């Protein structure tokens, strides 16, 4: 009996590595600390009522933000471990298996559990406010999306201490990810972690398309909609076309592993190349899904901090929509080297280059928004300015990679690694950070400290170039991604060492940002005006932090940048004050079902990961029970009385 338990424990828990024991200890300690604090201060009820059951898009946005920052930390630690391993030739810090697990989880976490939720955080924090809406179209579904993402991410993350991490690369190419070459639960964690959170992402895509198309304030035609909302629309259109492909692909891979099917096996009629096609039909649009909202953020910030209208609004909209379409015709450039026919390669090479055209146009439009403006260098604008050279260089190396015959030389090399980090860090991370700095006061009611922020900014930026410029050189030297070690004779040592130093500089930048948030909670400049940056769009017309119903009176939109126009009219004395008429506000009720249902999905995923069908069945029963319960819930909304609205507004310093 005792022997059996010991045997089970040694396969169930990951053992044998001091780094992992350290992680075990810190995980247990932080769990104990959380439980202790919540119990001591009697906060369990508060946690349940205010957060776990909330359907308020702003709170959901905040939870997405916290989750994504935690994941940025974990993905970043993975990156630093890898860079330490590669700093010198023949280092034996990590063995091959451990290194493979770390680069796999680094990639998956950064794209799916860091970039995606940070993007959803911004969607939730901003879009309804910008549209003059009181909520998203489907608040309950929105909460469910969050909890599915969260539990999917948790399932993926526990693989690190339970069962073993996936180690077949962030896209898990078969046949390497099949049972034959990757036995054990690692790849199952990958499949189910992504699958569960992917359902949430798809639902978010649908939710925001409907929100944008149906919930805009009266008078806000699509042609007057702020560019960030346009970028969200573009991104969500890509989500609803791309994510179903991912769902099916992962389901087929799971059938191969679990039920002995032969969709992607080497033998038995399977075809691994089919998986590459399918996964990149999702995977390539996916990188545009995360980068296009950043374009929207930059458009808002450039206009605000140059005190000028955005240049070429129509071009911007067209550019984003063209990107949404063309992104679906470029996937095969991820495997130019598979020896397909010349005409197929030529098609995908050209379509990849074409994506560069609308992107280039946007850069010029941003530049000419600044031209003849007045640029103030607040944190959101700093990140935007830093983004331009970074993204332009990253985009240029992307076009170089699209030159297929040259790609035969770059493919899978560090040149590629440097390129995609440059567009993803320069575009996505810089963009989202800019957006977080920009909209932070609206959500939390205070600004983030400028001085600490600038330290963080310079460490990130200089660190970035120190880290990734040498990697372009390493690519030319023949260094391939995913090598866990190399010899002195290759001449790769110097560049790798420099790169590692740069990575740690970015890590220091991140620490400054954490410090900045902690410091600003206590000492940050309070935003009493609701419009700390002299903004242009509707979200700046309401108090900070935004009240739970957003707008006491739904605004009547007359122009693009309506809030700016209102302010100008007030300054000119041409503003006609219309008597505000408060009405009871219709709001959705909180619900615990999304949280509970996502936990049952976790059970499903965990059960299938270890092949415990009974547990998966219990999970499925729970999921259906939740759906059943929800479909017979009729009392799902309520009205906020006028008196309460008036009181809330007064407490925020507004007279209505």
């Amino acid at each position, binding site marked *: 009996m005792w022997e059996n338990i010991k045997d089970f424990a040694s396969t169930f828990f990951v053992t044998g590595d001091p780094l992992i024991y350290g992680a075990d200890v810190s995980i247990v300690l932080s769990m104990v600390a959380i439980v202790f604090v919540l119990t001591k201060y009697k906060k369990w009820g508060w946690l349940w009522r205010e957060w776990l059951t909330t359907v308020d898009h702003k709170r959901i946005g905040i939870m997405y933000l916290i989750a994504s920052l935690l994941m940025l930390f974990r993905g970043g630690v993975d990156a630093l471990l890898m860079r330490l391993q590669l700093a010198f030739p023949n280092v034996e810090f990590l063995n*091959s298996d451990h290194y*493979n697990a770390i680069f796999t989880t680094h990639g998956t976490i950064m794209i799916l559990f860091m970039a995606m939720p940070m993007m959803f955080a911004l969607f939730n924090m901003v879009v309804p406010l910008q549209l003059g809406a009181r909520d998203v179209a489907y608040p309950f579904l929105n909460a469910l999306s969050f909890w599915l993402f969260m539990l999917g991410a948790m399932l993926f993350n526990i693989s690190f201490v339970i069962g073993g991490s996936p180690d*077949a690369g962030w896209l898990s*190419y078969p046949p*390497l990810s099949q049972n034959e*070459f990757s036995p054990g639960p690692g790849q199952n964690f990958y499949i189910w972690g992504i699958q569960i959170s992917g359902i949430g992402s798809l639902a978010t895509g649908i939710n925001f398309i409907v929100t944008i198309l149906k919930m805009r304030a009266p008078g806000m035609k699509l042609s007057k909609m702020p560019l960030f909302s346009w970028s969200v629309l573009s991104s969500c259109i890509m989500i609803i076309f791309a994510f179903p492909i991912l769902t099916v692909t992962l389901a087929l891979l799971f059938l191969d592993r679990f039920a002995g099917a032969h969709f992607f096996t*080497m033998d038995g009629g399977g*075809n691994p190349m*089919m998986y590459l*096609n399918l996964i990149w039909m999702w995977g390539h649009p996916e990188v545009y899904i995360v980068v296009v909202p950043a374009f929207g953020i930059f458009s808002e910030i450039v206009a605000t901090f140059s005190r*000028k209208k*955005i240049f*070429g609004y129509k071009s911007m909209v067209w550019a984003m929509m063209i990107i949404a379409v063309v992104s679906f015709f470029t996937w*095969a450039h991820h495997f130019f*080297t*598979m*020896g*397909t*026919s010349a005409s*197929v390669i*030529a098609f995908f090479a050209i379509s990849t*280059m*074409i994506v*560069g*055209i609308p992107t*280039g*146009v946007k*850069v*010029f439009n941003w*530049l*000419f*928004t600044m*031209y*003849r*403006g*007045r640029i103030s*260098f607040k944190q959101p604008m700093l990140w935007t*300015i830093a983004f331009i050279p970074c993204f332009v*260089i990253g985009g*240029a*190396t992307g*076009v*170089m990679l699209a*030159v*297929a015959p*040259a790609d*035969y*030389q770059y*493919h*899978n090399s560090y040149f590629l690694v440097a390129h995609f980090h440059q567009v993803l860090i320069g575009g996505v991370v810089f963009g989202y950070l800019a957006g977080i700095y920009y909209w932070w006061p609206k959500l939390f009611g205070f600004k983030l400290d400028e001085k600490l922020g600038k330290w963080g900014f*310079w460490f990130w930026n200089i660190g970035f*170039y120190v880290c990734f410029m*040498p990697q*372009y050189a390493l690519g*030319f030297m*023949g260094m*391939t991604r*995913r090598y866990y070690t*190399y010899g002195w004779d*290759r001449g790769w040592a110097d560049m790798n060492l420099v790169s590692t130093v740069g990575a740690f500089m970015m890590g220091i930048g991140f620490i400054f940002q954490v410090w900045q948030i902690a410091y600003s909670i206590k000492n940050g400049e309070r935003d009493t005006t609701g419009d700390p940056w002299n903004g242009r769009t509707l979200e700046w017309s309401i108090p900070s932090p935004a009240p739970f119903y957003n707008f006491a009176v739904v605004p009547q939109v007359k122009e693009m940048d309506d809030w700016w126009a209102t302010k100008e009219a007030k300054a000119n004395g041409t503003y006609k004050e219309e008597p505000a008429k408060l009405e009871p506000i219709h709001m959705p009720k909180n619900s615990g079902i999304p949280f509970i249902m996502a936990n049952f999905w976790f059970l499903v995923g965990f059960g299938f990961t270890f092949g415990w069908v009974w547990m998966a069945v219990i999970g499925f029963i729970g999921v259906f029970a939740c759906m059943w319960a929800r479909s017979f819930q009729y009392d799902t909304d309520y009205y906020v009385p006028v008196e309460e609205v008036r009181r809330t507004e007064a407490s925020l310093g507004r007279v209505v």
Partner: protein
Amino acid sequence: MSGGKMLRHIQFWILAVLGTVLLTGCGSEYLVLNPKGPVAETQYNLIIISTILVAVIIVPVIALTAFIVYRYRDTPGNKASYKPEWAHSTTLEVIWWIIPIVIVALLGYFTVRDIYLLKENPNKEVAPMTIQVTALDWKWMFTYPEQNIATVNHLEIPAGVPIRFQVSADAPMNSFWVPELGGQIYAMAGMATELYLQADEPGTFAGFSSNFSGEGFAKMQFNVVAKPKEEFDNWVKEVKGTTPAMTKADYEELRKPGVTDKFTYSAFPEGMFEEIVAKYGHGHDMDYVMEKPPAPAGDKSSNETSQNTQQKTESHNMPGMNHSSMNH
């Protein structure tokens, strides 16, 4: 922060970027930039052309960014014009839609030209020699059908002769890459991809696997030794005389996962490569999946054989590739 300080930082980045780019131009360790054969040469030229074409965009854009950010900074007494409502200019927008379109058109022309070029024998004057490459867990096996010899983890080729590599795998996917001789091609089970490479001069060139395939992947490296034709022929004779022949059992041993040393074999079981490809061909028409290599040349004039090869190459531009997922 003042605009001047900003500008200095931007200048620093530009210098850092340029410094790195310039550094890449020298030194023999930059394998991709030191082409030693016609295929790598073509690709090197494309790299240079594409770098120049993208530089035509990025250098002015970065300069313009620095200028605009400096000139329109919000400082007291800035006399530059301020036009908050100026937000449209058809002329300007047409210009920057057209510039990237022209650049992409130019780049597209060179790209497509070379895509077709590289599918063919790079050296029309000399008949190509065939070598079959099999990626195993985690080693490379090379079989020479014309010489009937085999090697593991090292490759010897005659200089000045184009080599037609047929690449497959009896393991997860890998990629066969010798940067100084030219770009890579995937090694995939159930298919035989084709790649032409040629070394112009004798020398030793580093070869890599560049597609992740599991634990021993980082050790899947080999050297390619190019020798003058006579020396190569002597080496073949020596191999014939001094090394053991590979048996089926030897192969089964080789394909077990693990890292091994270099080996050389004086012979290998006939049709072994074709069998490896067919093993995963699962019912496809085998002529389609795998084009038969020419019979071992031995003492026959190699010219005849190679003409034969070239004809076949033309009719099957893409041996081993399963079109169903791409073309239809």
